[in-house]
């Protein structure tokens, strides 16, 4: 057990990190983005520039969280992330998983919760970077398919929301559907965090007793050949079941009933 002092430091530093994240989002969205609009280049160039900025900002944020000892982390295989038409799927145990994955993928597109398009701290950034809202379903699927076809790499969390601690893993089928329609490459990222930082239903100041350690491991590409010839509804069901079993086995957790659309 660490000293009380260190524990209280981590609560304080977590608060600082939270504020920093919000502030960074505001600065990028409200101040930096309008400036990038003035630079030459069309909408595609502008979006790419914004994604690059977001990536560098999040990389810095990850270093800060590590530096102030809120967390520690290791990321294995990031050189295999960011290929054109690559769909990156990850499990989602904690609030900041996406921060790491975006920080370690060159300028990816990302499917994010619709609420981030309304939150004043994140709204500017997710719009400027051309991220895709997870709702409504049809727009999410068409947006994601278009992004992959245009050569973007795309980050998705098939759980849709953070894992409910103690509950079996569940994947919504949207990710599998997008994979069978449009992914050139499907690459899993296994996310582990021990002890859990900011799982679902836990307020930010309830920091775990030890400093959480994150492990990100980029898995081997998943072969999609078997799913290509099938009608999409069947292919996406089979792939979704396979993905759920695969992640559950890799993470050593129970894989539960697969939710349909995640509605």
């Amino acid at each position: 057990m660490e000293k009380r002092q260190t524990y209280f430091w981590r609560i304080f530093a977590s608060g600082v990190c939270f504020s920093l994240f919000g502030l960074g989002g505001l600065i990028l969205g409200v101040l930096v983005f309008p400036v990038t609009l003035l630079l030459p280049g069309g909408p595609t160039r502008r979006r790419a520039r914004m994604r690059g900025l977001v990536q560098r900002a999040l990389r810095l944020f990850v270093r800060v969280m590590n530096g102030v000892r809120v967390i520690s982390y290791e990321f294995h295989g990031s050189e295999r992330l960011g290929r054109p038409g690559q769909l990156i799927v990850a499990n989602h145990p904690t609030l900041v998983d996406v921060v790491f994955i975006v920080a370690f993928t060159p300028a990816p597109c990302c499917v994010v919760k619709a609420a981030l398009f309304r939150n004043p701290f994140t709204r500017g950034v997710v719009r400027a970077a051309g991220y895709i809202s997870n709702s409504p379903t049809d727009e999410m699927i068409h947006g994601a398919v278009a992004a992959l076809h245009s050569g973007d790499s795309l980050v998705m969390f098939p759980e849709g929301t953070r894992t409910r601690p103690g509950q079996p893993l569940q994947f919504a089928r949207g990710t599998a559907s997008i994979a069978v329609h449009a992914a050139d490459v499907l690459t899993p990222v296994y996310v582990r965090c021990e002890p859990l930082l900011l799982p679902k239903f836990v307020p930010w100041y309830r920091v775990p007793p030890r400093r959480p350690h994150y492990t990100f491991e980029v898995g081997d590409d998943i072969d999609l050949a078997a799913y290509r010839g099938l009608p999409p509804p069947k292919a996406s069901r089979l792939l979704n079941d396979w993905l759920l079993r695969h992640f559950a086995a890799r993470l050593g957790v129970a894989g539960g009933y697969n939710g349909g659309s995640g509605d």
Partner: protein
Amino acid sequence: MQTKDEILEQIKASLTELFELDPARITLAARLNEDLEIDSIDAVDLLDGLRRQTGRKISAEDFRSVRTVGDLVEAIYRLVQA
């Protein structure tokens, strides 16, 4: 101009092909979600298929109120009439 019966046949063909459903289950009263287990992800594939078949720009908005196969026939009938 397509009749409603022709539209129903077209829908049956799409549903059997995409979802491997028994054609006997596809009645006008069958509810897409509860009876035929077609969820919102499937609906995207279904509408994409219908777009290709009819060659029309079908917006998802036109289908927000669709619950049964009968509703779907009516919605497509209205579109091809328009």
